[in-house]
């Protein structure tokens, strides 16, 4: 039995009066790359935020690397790396300053921190921009800084919410290689994305969430076999009820005609 990195048991979550997660259960094993799929508003980001200790579940239990949440959220945060969906940054800091801040908040020893920052900036081709303010960075550069910040403290669990957003093709390929290499080194990765062919290629397993419920989980091959669909995208369409061409599209085009 492989060691579990995340235990998500009958988790319920509500924002104000709206219930977002309806008793979801799953387990992530150590060294696994797991894709988290679902349409917009399905509850993917909420699931990730609960695992990251940012939100507290309304009911159910969550443990991350054996640590219960939300009681020991600070300890969990020490062991995870999180790349959020939206690239909120302190815009007036430089790339170097932002990475230093994040590393120091995770108590990374200064010499190690500087070495890691240097390596990350070199790998992401940001060395020349290290002293530029983040508000001058492009969307892709910001995304690279966020990914770098999530790795600085050598976390056991890495939560990636749309990590390839804004990246150019070369950077996206590099990130995919990086994810695979991290998993080989025993890191657990939860990868939320709408780009299904990437999930199909790099993930060991996929979890599909729809309207706050876990509707399927398994390896991409198992999901394709069980639904009789040729690709993960077709599996997704069939499970979430989205058709090949949305009739609403024609409606929008028609309404634009004078």
């Amino acid at each position: 039995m492989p060691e579990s990195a995340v235990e998500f048991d009958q988790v319920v979550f509500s924002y104000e009066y709206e219930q977002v997660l309806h008793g979801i259960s799953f387990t992530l094993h150590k060294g696994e790359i797991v894709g988290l799929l679902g349409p917009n508003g399905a509850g993917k980001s909420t699931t990730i935020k609960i695992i990251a200790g940012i939100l507290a579940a309304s009911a159910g239990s969550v443990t991350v690397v054996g640590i219960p949440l939300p009681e020991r959220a600070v300890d969990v945060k020490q062991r995870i790396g999180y790349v959020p969906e939206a690239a909120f940054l302190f815009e007036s800091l430089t790339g170097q300053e932002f990475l230093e801040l994040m590393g120091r908040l995770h108590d990374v020893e200064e010499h190690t921190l500087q070495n890691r920052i240097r390596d990350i900036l070199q790998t992401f081709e940001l060395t020349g921009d290290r002293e530029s303010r983040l508000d001058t960075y492009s969307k892709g550069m910001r995304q690279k800084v966020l990914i770098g910040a999530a790795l600085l403290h050598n976390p056991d669990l890495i939560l990636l919410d749309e990590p390839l957003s804004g990246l150019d093709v070369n950077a996206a390929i590099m990130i995919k290689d990086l994810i695979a290499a991290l998993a080989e080194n025993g890191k657990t990765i939860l990868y939320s994305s709408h780009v299904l062919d990437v999930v199909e290629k790099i993930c060991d397993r996929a979890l599909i969430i729809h309207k706050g419920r876990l509707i399927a989980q398994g390896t991409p091959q198992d999901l394709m076999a069980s639904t009789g669909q040729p690709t993960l995208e077709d599996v997704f369409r069939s499970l979430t009820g989205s058709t090949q061409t949305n009739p609403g599209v024609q409606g929008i085009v028609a309404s634009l005609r004078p």
Partner: protein
Amino acid sequence: MRKWLQNPWTDRFLQSCGVNPRHYWLLIDLFAQLSERGEMMDQLGRNGVALKSVAIIYFLMSSAIGVITVLAQPSAPVYLGIFMAFTAFLLMTVLVTEAGNSLINPQEAVILAHQPINGATYTAAKLSHLARIVLYLVPGLNVIPALAGLMLKNAAWYYPAVHLIAAFVVGTASALLCCSLFGLLVRFVPVRRLKAAGQLAGALPFLAMSGGQSALRSLSRLHWRNWLPADPLFYWGLAGLLCIVGVGGIVLGIRSLSADYLIRVSSMSRGGASAGARRSRFGAIVRWMFGGQSAVAGFAFVSRMMLRDWQFRRLMIPMFVYPLVGLVSLIASGWPADPFGGGKFSTMHLLPHAMGFLLFFICSVLPYGNDYKGVWIFLSVPSRAIDGFTRGIFSVLWINVVLIPNLIALALFARPWGIWHAGLFTAFSMALASLYLALELRMIENVPFSKQIDTTRQAMMLPLMIGGGIVAAIVVSVQYFLLFHSAAAVALTAVVLAGAAYFTARASLSTVAGSIRFHLSVISSETTSLYREIAG
């Protein structure tokens, strides 16, 4: 100061309070850096220029009050009591606002929420600037009154020292009380109600002052001294009990900030999802009166943001407390007299000036908002639409602050005063309030809700408001003593004021539209213009 404070003793003290010293100093440095670079401008205690400006204003104000009070020669304890109450009130108005802004609206919490920082460390770092406010404002408010106290009869030579020590104790207690208040709110108020509760908390010092005055009046009417025992031990016991309850409440409140604060704040960041989708009934009127879809856009945008923007609501809610208290006491004291009645002063004379005061405050805070980064959307708007948009801004303020309250007044007073007097007063009041709006509109120098809150500007509001109050008092006197003796004179003045309001509004609208275009061109020149440049 920072280097002097960071030492093993401070770190040990922080640790004993559950604060991680390493993280605490990192956050202190981060907040200082962000404030210095103009990214975090909403905290007075981190803005040296604004803090010094407020301290100087308070210094001048309290010096004048100190000298006047000394001339009345009260006893030393009464004099001390007056200034301690004054210090507590002014500090609380500033500290409640600052603590609320820091704890209920922490923009940076979205970025730091997944970092391994405990609640105690985060809130301690966030609230450290309150200590700086106390250190600046307490001497500003008390140095001259403390020295002036030496001129009181029977004042001891050491009175200034006693006064200043007492002022610092009051200041520290006020700061702790604020932290405790918000700790209790964070702990006990449901997350979805927390933002609204934080905004209402800003009105507490004003409510406490109004409520305190009413309570004292009621107690004196009840001759409460006759009901209580004369034994001094009773009062010592009562004071001791109140101290224990107070200290217990403060400790409980502050401890509440150390728990799952960051988790509750993260949940709160999604607050306002159920804002409702009411459609304004004024859209068609605005389109007809103020011209086109862009005016409707301005009307809809400003009216909805006024209801939903955290900073705007936070600043405006305390402004409604005094008019509300005034309204309640007006109702309690009977129907306002007919302003044309002759002889007796009618409180209704104040109505257009109260509207002018409210409009002054709204126009001065309207350019600032929580979602100021959304201003980029206006860069994609055709330049000519800005004219209509500006008329839309005017329409919101005119309809909601001038037209509707005056029509309500007309409906209320038509019967007791007669339709002729009520109609003429309403026409006069509307014309005067419209002129106020036309003049004050120029304070909107950017797209509404498109700038980060600026504490320096806020600090300048108090003297402007005092100056405005003096001007309004003179105008009310002219109104009462000279104008309202003749209905014809009032009618003529109303026509002149309406004409002046119309032409001034046209000129102001053109100026505001030009100003908005200029600021948008500055923003479009480079993205970094959204923030202040790093010095050097």
